[in-house]
């Protein structure tokens, strides 16, 4: 049986109840599986935008259903664990975190679908608005999602903090791209329809970054017990490392 990552720092890897161990392991691995799926959805969507090849878009919209089902499934298993095992401390945090992370993943999936839908709309007249930004942000959020999931798998607080920092960059890039779009629209009002589509795509990418950040915050919650939602980076670093001292 694989070693549970959260208990890495704890000297007691195994629960007395083996079933409890495998239950926890099951929701974690299913979450990772869902994470992988969502990651691929996002990557395909970004591809569709940047390459102008809209063929994966339909596939993305179809697989959106799978993501939703997985969210419901994992959430139900989390509820089961809460009811049957009354987990405490790190186990409790793990279950709560998984439940929150799957919600974020599902939202990411939604955003990916949105991107795919808009990709179909902009299809054909890829005028190249903000292509640079979209490509850059797409790469960044791809790294953020996989970074957040990796951090979760390894209970790596520093990795999680990196993701949070990256989110700042994505936000900055988003603001820059927004300004760029505004200039396009001011120059040529006919481009507004197209620009709005791009705007929606940028917005979706930015939201995905936020969700990846939320996932990273859950990593910190699982590992240190500190609730770092709605905190600044410096507060986060402080809280995340405070309880590593022991």
């Amino acid at each position, binding site marked *: 049986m694989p070693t549970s990552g959260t208990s890495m720092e704890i000297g007691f890897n195994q629960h007395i109840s083996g079933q409890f161990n495998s239950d926890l392991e099951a929701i974690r691995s299913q979450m990772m599986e869902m994470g992988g799926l969502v990651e691929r959805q996002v990557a395909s969507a970004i591809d569709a935008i940047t390459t102008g090849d809209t063929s994966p878009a339909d596939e993305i919209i179809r697989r959106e259903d799978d993501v939703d089902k997985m969210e419901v499934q994992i959430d139900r298993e989390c509820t089961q664990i809460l009811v049957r095992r009354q987990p405490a401390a790190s186990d409790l945090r793990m279950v709560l975190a998984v439940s929150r992370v799957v919600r974020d993943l599902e939202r990411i999936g939604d955003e990916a679908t949105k991107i795919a839908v808009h990709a179909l709309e902009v299809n054909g007249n890829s005028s190249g608005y903000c292509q640079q930004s979209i490509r850059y942000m797409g790469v960044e959020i791809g790294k953020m999602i996989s970074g957040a999931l990796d951090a979760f798998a390894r209970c790596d607080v520093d990795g999680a903090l990196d993701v949070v920092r990256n989110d700042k960059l994505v936000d900055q890039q988003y603001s820059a791209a927004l300004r760029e779009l505004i200039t396009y629209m001011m120059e040529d009002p006919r481009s507004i329809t197209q620009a709005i589509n791009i705007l929606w795509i940028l917005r979706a990418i930015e939201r995905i970054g936020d969700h990846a950040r939320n996932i990273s915050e859950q990593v910190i919650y699982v590992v240190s017990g500190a609730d770092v939602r709605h905190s600044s980076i410096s507060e986060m670093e402080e809280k995340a490392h405070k*309880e590593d001292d022991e």
Partner: protein
Amino acid sequence: MSIIENHKTDGQPFSENPKLKARDVRVFYGEKQAIFDVSLDIGANEVIALIGPSGCGKSTFLRCLNRMNDTIDICRIEGEILLDDENIYAPKMDVVPLRARVGMVFQKPNPFPKSIYDNVAYGPRIHGLVHHRDELDEVVEKSLQRAGLWNEVKDRLHAPGTGLSGGQQQRLCIARTIAVDPEVILMDEPCSALDPIATAKIEELIDELRENYTIAIVTHSMQQAARVSQRTAYFHLGQLIEVNPTDLVFTTPEHTLTEAYITGRFG
């Protein structure tokens, strides 16, 4: 699981408004040391839960608080336990009035083989708290009411206490304890022999009693500790590992041993 020599208790073992203060308490059974330098405050009107695996010394520590360990010949206690800043192990301290101030409820409901009335009246009688039958009646009624048992037994006060159900017996024992009007109530796994509904009633009662009494409860059920206590103390192999507010202990315990115990990784 390695034991930490001279472990300093994590968390907040001291209280701002302590009722009982234990300082460097060491307990020996013959040659064997059962408790290692435990320092802990029990605050006034708080419920503190003592948890830990079997044989961790939590019951032993609890029984030190009203000197129930005196009855064990080979048991030796060092350090101080102060009740309102008065050392209960001082030579001039008499255990009889001490136990009237620090009452105890045991694991197994143990009513006397007497009537319900006599069970509750026993404490006030031996301590001479009442002088007339009327007063005694009043004390008995009040105690049974506080223990939430009055409505169930008011028609059969002179029926044997041992004829009640397990949960009722335990509430009778609590009524018997509070009839003496103690300041502190010690409970040694009071629900371990009871069904969930009786347990829920006792837990509800503990919550109500907190207004007037200071309560220390030893429990094997972590859910129970989480439900009834304000602070939780975790004992491990005779050491007090961690004391913290209960919500912290059960979400983010400071010590890895506490974590391992409450998540069910040993114990």
